[in-house]
């Protein structure tokens, strides 16, 4: 037996320390593995570095180093006065800031805009933080109460009646239209060859109209009586509150379980009463500020928030309609969605501006801002419908069937089982649509509304501030605002997406 240690195959001495492996983590590692690991990569890195050098350096110089920070008018921003090539002309933004934010909103009333903004932030922030409780109440406040309050805050004015009067007005409008149609048919019947048929149809329609007239007569009579009294708003309010609370009580289950519904209804009406009293809506409210005085960021936010709030219900309704088993509703929804999705927004705005007034009765005109809002809501609604449909399609059939097995009606199945799940699925898509909507609000400047971009463009034509760098400064400022909003929303959507997919990770 030989000593194993004497064998020449066995190493006798200690191996030299090998050098530590090349660091692949940290900054140095990053540089080594991802920037300079091959000739091509080195070349690409150099190209990238040059690209950055030629974009970032001039931008920083323009925005900070060469910028002019103080001045009274354009002379401060001209190269011959400043003594160097002038970058951004910030005093121009300072001078135009009120216009870029409020437009021509009267100076004395601007606190209303600020208050609205504060209100929206106070309501919106808790809604966006998932940990905070009572989302339902919060959402209700933001989506239903806030728009109304914001309208009376921003636009001003008061109310002459309440629920009862409005219902009566609406029903009367409907009835007038039916009677009008009947009369038109009868009139046509005198000359047309199909006179007997027209006469019959016209008379039937007239009959229906008259029947409805007598059906709603108590309502209209009550309204006229109320208008006669001095305190019409409060009387109307009390009656509406009583009726609605009663209905809530009965539908909520009567004596057995209706207590809760009754309480919430009463609380809601109390809150409404407080708001009416606080804002003095019963006697004229705040001074009216016409919408053509609104402008700047205010209009951008008003248009986008209104679009967001109104497009979602439209989208949900259209998406449900598209999945409906009733042929007519399905066909209508498909046609509606595809129509709005197939045309550019600008033509929709043209449509709203030029054609909508033709379609409404001759005796009322719709405010220019409202017209644009209607166009944008319908347009975004069609896009939201497709998003919601994606969510609905992702819900397994079993959910609906299970609900049906429990004996829930279609409405309950949809609103309690299917929709909550579907909407949660598509929150990122919805937020992405909101981002597009926010960006698309800039288009209203083409139909003569002065949003942020429109105000910016208008401010360019002020000779007091015309200098070579004015346009760049203005675009830099507006660009930063747009970017903050859109980037913030997109980050939030990513955050929600991560949260939703939490169960899929690990």
């Amino acid at each position, binding site marked *: 037996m030989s000593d194993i240690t004497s064998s020449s195959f066995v190493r006798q001495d200690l191996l030299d320390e090998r050098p530590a492996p090349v660091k692949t983590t940290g900054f140095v590692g990053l540089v080594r593995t991802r920037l300079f690991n091959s000739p091509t990569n080195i070349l690409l890195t150099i190209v990238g570095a040059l690209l950055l050098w030629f974009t970032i350096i001039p931008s920083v110089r323009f925005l900070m180093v060469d910028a002019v920070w103080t001045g009274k008018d354009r002379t401060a921003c001209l190269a011959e006065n400043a003594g160097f090539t002038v970058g951004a002309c910030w005093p121009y933004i300072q001078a135009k800031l009120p216009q870029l934010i409020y437009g021509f909103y009267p100076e004395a009333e601007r606190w209303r805009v600020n208050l609205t903004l504060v209100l929206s932030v106070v309501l919106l922030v808790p809604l966006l933080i998932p940990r905070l409780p009572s989302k339902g109440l919060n959402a209700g406040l933001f989506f239903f109460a806030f728009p109304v309050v914001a309208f009376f805050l921003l636009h001003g004015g008061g109310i002459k009646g309440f629920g009862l009067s409005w219902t009566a007005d609406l029903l009367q409008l409907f009835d007038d239209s039916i009677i009008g149609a009947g009369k038109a048919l009868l009139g046509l019947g005198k000359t047309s060859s199909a006179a007997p048929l027209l006469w019959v149809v016209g008379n039937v329609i007239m009959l229906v109209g008259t029947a409805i007239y007598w059906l709603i007569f108590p309502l209209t009579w009550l309204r006229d009586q109320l208008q006669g009294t001095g305190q019409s708003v409060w009387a109307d309010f009390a009656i509406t509150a009583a009726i609605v609370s009663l209905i809530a009580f009965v539908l909520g289950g009567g004596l057995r379980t209706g207590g809760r519904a009754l309480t919430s209804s009463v609380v809601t009406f109390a809150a409404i009463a407080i708001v009416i009293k606080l804002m003095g809506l019963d006697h004229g409210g705040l001074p009216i500020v016409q919408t053509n005085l609104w402008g700047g960021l205010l209009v951008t936010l008003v248009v986008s928030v209104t679009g967001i709030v109104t497009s979602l219900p439209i989208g949900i309704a259209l998406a449900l309609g598209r999945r409906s088993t009733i042929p007519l509703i399905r066909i209508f929804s498909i046609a509606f969605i595809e129509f709005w999705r197939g045309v550019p927004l600008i033509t929709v705005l043209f449509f709203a501006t030029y054609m909508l007034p033709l379609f409404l009765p001759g005796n009322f005109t719709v405010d220019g801002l409202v017209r644009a809002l209607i166009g944008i809501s319908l347009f975004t609604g069609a896009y939201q419908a497709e998003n919601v449909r994606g969510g609905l399609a992702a819900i397994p059939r079993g959910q609906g069937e299970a609900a049906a097995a429990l004996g829930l009606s279609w409405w309950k199945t949809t609103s309690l089982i299917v929709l909550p799940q579907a909407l949660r699925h598509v929150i990122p898509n919805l937020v992405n649509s909101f981002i597009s909507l926010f960006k698309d609000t800039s288009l209203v400047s083409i139909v003569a509304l002065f949003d942020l971009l429109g105000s910016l463009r208008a401010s360019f034509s002020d000779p007091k501030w*015309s200098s070579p760098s004015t346009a760049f400064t203005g675009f830099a400022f507006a660009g930063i605002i747009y970017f903050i909003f859109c980037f913030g929303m997109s980050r939030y959507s990513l955050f929600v997406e991560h949260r939703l997919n939490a169960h899929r990770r690990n």
Partner: protein
Amino acid sequence: MKRVILALTLALAAGLTAQAAEAQTLKTVKDRGMLSCGVSQGLPGFSSPDDKGNWTGLDVDVCRAIAGAIFNDPTKVKYVPLSAKDRFTALQSGEVDVLSRNTTWTISRDTSLGANFTGVTYYDGQGFMVKKSLKVNSALELNSASVCVQTGTTTEQNLADYFKANNMKYEVIAFGTNDETVKAYEAGRCDVFTTDQSGLYANRLKLANPGDHMVLPEIISKEPLGPMVRHGDDQWFDIVKWTLFAMITAEELGVTAKNVDEKAKQENPELKRVLGTDGNFGEQLGLSKDWVVRIVKAVGNYGEVFDRNVGAGSPLGINRGLNNLWNKGGLQYAPPIR
């Protein structure tokens, strides 16, 4: 679904609507307590807002005069700034009661647009503005030039006619609003800016260095500018028409904003008739007896309005020229109030 939208529309509309029944504009205006007046989006001398949104100008003063005649308060006007493209639609849809927006009176507009011109507030003509550095002295030297023009105006069509008639080539660059057009001209996108001559003078003030630009002598069209109202409401048509005539008559009779009260006491039969101490012409119009006094108190006579906004007393400094009274070599002529 659609019903929801309609209900929504109606509810929204109810909040923001203004009643504007076709046949009774005066009643609507009185009920509303405001005159809704379409003006341009900003043309110094004719209608332009200051930083606080107060409007001034010749076209604006016409609105103020009407409001003065109706309410005895020239501030009761809601100004609706309209682009050239939107203006007729706004009038037709009833969004504005009167369109006082340097609009040229043509037969096609008078007939096919469903609107009536009520008179001429300013006799104008289309001209050209160029940079002095181009050393151009006549519009006939503009061959191959690039021309900036506002779209949807008669100027766009006159331009085509003029260059064709003189066998010159040009490149047209059309923009949606006046400001965009001026801005493009200033930025050098085109050599020539064309619009009504009054507009050229007004827009020159918007340039950073007005002294570097000149208006060429040629006038290539007749452009009588005036207010418009909708077809089908003769009473309203009469009110707007006679408001302008009242201003011209006041100048003819030497009635100014300062001396109107004094003149009203004088025993001159014509003055008594015009200023309402004799006869009831105002009431026949649907206004008050002292309507002319109200108008003159609100804005002054036509001469004062002209001077203050576009004439010698304004930065524009335009000569009266054609806009002088008929007995002073101009075209402004009012039918007698009797």
